[in-house]
């Protein structure tokens, strides 16, 4: 890991601990020897109140490449996560996480976490990443809502 990457990740950790939105969590994973792996984080995104996502806290992993912050982190939900903009592998399709789109080195973990929370209830149908959720979202909202509610129970707060 480059010193820039390490420095920035330490800074991100400090910032997050000091100021993060309620209900979210994020922490670096542990290596097998018990030491901290700053390049891989586990985090939880609570669904927004008043939405069909509200009952769950959805787990994600955030992997920071060696080139971070020049390159964005890769954010993944569990494989098979039901959402129109989440790939079957769980990878999140979000412009601020795309190097060729809106990623900027100044984007913080807090902004990413809030961006993903927003994405949950405001999918972008123009950028589909998985077929079942995308199809249901466009064609059968009742089915979509039901599946999201069941998924929320799986990740209940």
């Amino acid at each position: 890991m480059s010193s820039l990457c390490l420095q920035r990740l330490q800074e991100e950790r400090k910032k997050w601990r000091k100021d993060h939105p309620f209900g979210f969590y994020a922490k670096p994973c542990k290596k097998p020897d018990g030491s901290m792996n700053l390049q891989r984080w586990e985090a939880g995104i609570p669904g927004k109140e008043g939405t069909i996502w509200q009952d769950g806290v959805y787990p994600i992993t955030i992997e920071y490449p060696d080139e971070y912050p020049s390159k964005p982190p890769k954010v993944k939900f569990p494989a098979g996560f039901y959402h129109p903009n989440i790939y079957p592998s769980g990878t999140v399709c979000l412009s601020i996480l795309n190097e060729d789109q809106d990623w900027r080195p100044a984007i913080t973990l807090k902004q990413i976490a809030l961006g993903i929370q927003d994405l949950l209830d405001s999918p972008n149908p123009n950028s589909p990443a998985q077929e079942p959720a995308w199809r249901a979202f466009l064609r059968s909202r009742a089915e979509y809502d039901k599946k999201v509610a069941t998924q929320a129970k799986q990740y209940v707060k």
Partner: protein
Amino acid sequence: MDIDQVVRLIEGLYSPQPSQDVGTIQQELQSIQKSDDGFLLANELLSNIAYSPNVKYFGALTLTVQLSTNVDSYEILWKIFKANLLHLVKFCSQYVKDSSNSASLLIIIKKLMSNLSLIFTNINEWSNVETSGSAITHWNNPVNTVVLMLSHEEQFSSRNWQDTLETDQLIHHLANSPVPYDKLMLFIKTSEFYNKLALMFTEIIVEDLTKFQSKKGTMNKMYEIVHEHLYISTMALINVNLAEWHVSEDILYNCIGAWINYISMARNVSPYGRMDLSEMFDNMINRMCQSTEATDGFYQAEKILGILANVFANDPIIMGHPQREELEVIFLGVSRTGSANSIKNNWMLQYMNYLVTNEMTDDLKELAVCVVDFLLVNTLDMCNKLFTVVSSPKFNGDNLQQYIKVLLQLTNFPLIPVLQEFFSVRMVDFWLDLADCYSNTVAETYTESAPQLATEIFQQVVSIYLPKISLLNKQKAMEAENDDTAMHEFDDFRSAIADLMESLWSILGNDKLTNILITGVGENTLSTDGTSSVDIFEVETMSFLLNTLLTDMNLRESPWICDILDSCEFFVGNILMLFQVGCESSADSIVARTLKLDFVRTGSSLMGTMAGYFQQSPSQLSTCVDALFQGLEKCTIAASPADTQLNDKLEVMIIKTISTLCDACRYEISPYLMQFTTVFKTIMRPDSNVSTFTREKLTRSLGYIIEAQVENGPERQAACMLEILSTIESYVQQALTISELPSEQQRGYLHCMLTCISELGTAMIHSSEEENETFVQRVAEFRNYWKLDPLQISSKVLNLLQLVLSNPAYAKDMAFVEVACLILGKALGLPYENPHFLKYSMKEIMEFLLNHISTTDVALALPYYVYLLEKLIKQYKDQLSPQDFDFLFENFFLQYYQSAILHDPDLLQTTINFVNSVLDSKPGLVVHGAYWTSFLLPEFIKCLSAKERFTIVAVTKFWCKVINNKKYIREDNELTRHQFVLIGQEVVYQTMFGLFHSQRSDLSSYTDLLRTTMAKLPLQTPKWLAAALPAISKNNAAHEKFISKLSVTRGSRAANNVILEWWLSCNALPSL
């Protein structure tokens, strides 16, 4: 437009009820501001004494517009500079003479100062400027200039503040004349308002410079000039203000804050950005300590601490070491190096006492943030001094012990966290940092006593935090606050402590942390007379933390922990008590509901986490499961809507724990199969008040237990399953007998019944990782049994599905189609040797689908069919022939192609993907089929120019697989290559046509296809491209470049760029 009309418009603009549209007024005024008359207008508005402050302000604003409009003319800049200065000095003079009646001038003064700060940058950054000789080419210190002009005020006022030959000469003379320190001091002491204006001006300049930095990149020359001139006068101003007791504190502190921000920014981008602030910080610290309740109600202290908090949060190193050490003594009464000054620390104690006594929680929180941020600056140093040999010889061990004692006291602030104090909350960060520093330190550098010392310190930290995070405190915090903030903050505090425990575990280990918590939970229980010697809140706190620690462990493989758990005879009992107290506690208020939820969450989560332990020591497992079922039963009773909402959450938590235990402890729990079956039958009843989620989870849990019934052979398993399926069957039949149209509730219920079958099927899939020995020995027996299926269980399920889907209401309901396909496909893909009660033959599944297809809506059902068909082909590919594929393709796709699929991009994509999956699995089935050349190839060529991204991705993948497929056998390869050579021209044309007309974001979808075609057919592809491209776009140069680049490009990214370049060029868009 004459001046009176302009003035009327301006007054209208600022009027609360404008006579005409504000937008129109703004447009009109803006056009005048930008015009060549703008400067004259500004002068007139600022000169006429009769005009209102609004009009004058608009004049100052007009000068700003002129500044940004005439960016290329140095002469105009100079003209504006003089006018701005003259007006500023005039208004400052008026303000100083009669401040009470001229207060409204301040806003105009600030605007003019801001204009001058822009001019300050423009003059100095305008390199190699050529002027007519009448303008200055650099400007050192705007504050000095204004000070000097105010000192020569009469000479300007006698010229009526006009830009005349005399004033011009005077400005030339004064612009860069120095102001010695004494003269500056004399000037500000002349009037407190001069002092105020000087501070205000320097603040505005550096604020603007900080803002400009992000816009302009580096401004090296400016940093140098500020460093050499403005910094010196400003520090003189600030320090004299701090040292002497002036009244304009807000302006002073705003000015200090702006300078700190500026230096913090500048020192990272320029060597001239480094400026010493020691004297200023010394003066601030002194002044802070002079601020008391008696003198100013700690007003100054609060302001200074606000600035210090900002420094420590953003750029702590900006403060020198001596000042930080002094602050350390003030904050803590002791420093790491050994300095101590109880008098200065007394001030801190008085201040804290004042905040506590007056219940000034927000201020106390700010102080906590400031102090802890300050402490965080030195964690590494502290870690070294405490635990390693890497410390200075001056280091005094006793002193550091004292230091730690103070920090522990600060952590143990004797009030309710979140509600009344924030020190303990913020100190979590400090201890976490210290623990990380300790853990990351090279072990060889530890002192001999380091491990012992670390243990002592961190054990105290644990002891301090245990009562702090008690739900009793959460309850108090919630009761005292009206909104959810306190609750959320407290939850965050608890999560932070859980993180801290994880870090401390690597230092304290199981011995001194996990085991202590286990003992804490399990050492006591209710006494014989029924009086409790157990504090249930304490049990909750320790269980909460224990859960965090145990989650990361595999208890099944941690015999030491299991031994400790075994030795605490009340442990499981107390966890159960915690859970039961939660279930039985009242829910008559928001606070009560929240605590109830917390108790149940902690209790049930820990029970689930202990599944590995129960595998080793199952004696209390059944008690736990009983308690969980009792809890579940209570959730079905709801008195109010709020109860229902709460119960839903409790129900989910409890059933998830049951499911976790059943999954992990399926063998240990198997003696209770009968009890589970009884519960199952109860909750499956249509009138049972449980959610579908619970029904489905419980069925899966029961499935785990049935899966573990291997001792008595497959017959026993089959009998259990038959009982379950018969129960479901009878409820399904009952539901179907209702003749009228099904209600939403009935539909949901029926769907849930089928989903339960699917859940049972999932539970019965044997995990290869956790094979049971008996099962492995008897696997052949199980396989043979399920092959014969003497109880006809698979037929029973199939018949049930047919029964439900024969009802027209459900045949067209996609939720039912989906679950039917899930059930039928459940065992497809399982290895041949794995037995399963849902293994269906190809014939059975095909018959089912063919029966059903005539009664459903194919357009909606096709994706679910395809899911099943794909699995079917993968499973039975060796038994299938191209004719079978043709049959399947004809019946499920071709028949509906024109009527439904072709017009629906989703279905089109589904169809293409299906063919792709066959090409992935056994391509011979499709390429030797009758529809390959007659239908698939010609149709999928057309799809290359589709507009929808999903279709494009699917069809380009198809063509890639046609050209390059590792699953081809030799015959497949020869055939497809021959075929592609014949149609390659058309494929390439359609690809490029589609690409040319697609959106920029879709271009990458074509990359792989073009790369593959070029790689596999390097001779033909350039020719095909050369023939195709001119028909798509008339840009031969771009085409030539594209073809030559593509043929030599390796790598997807490079190919993407080549394609993008061609696309931009042909669409007449700017190149990269």
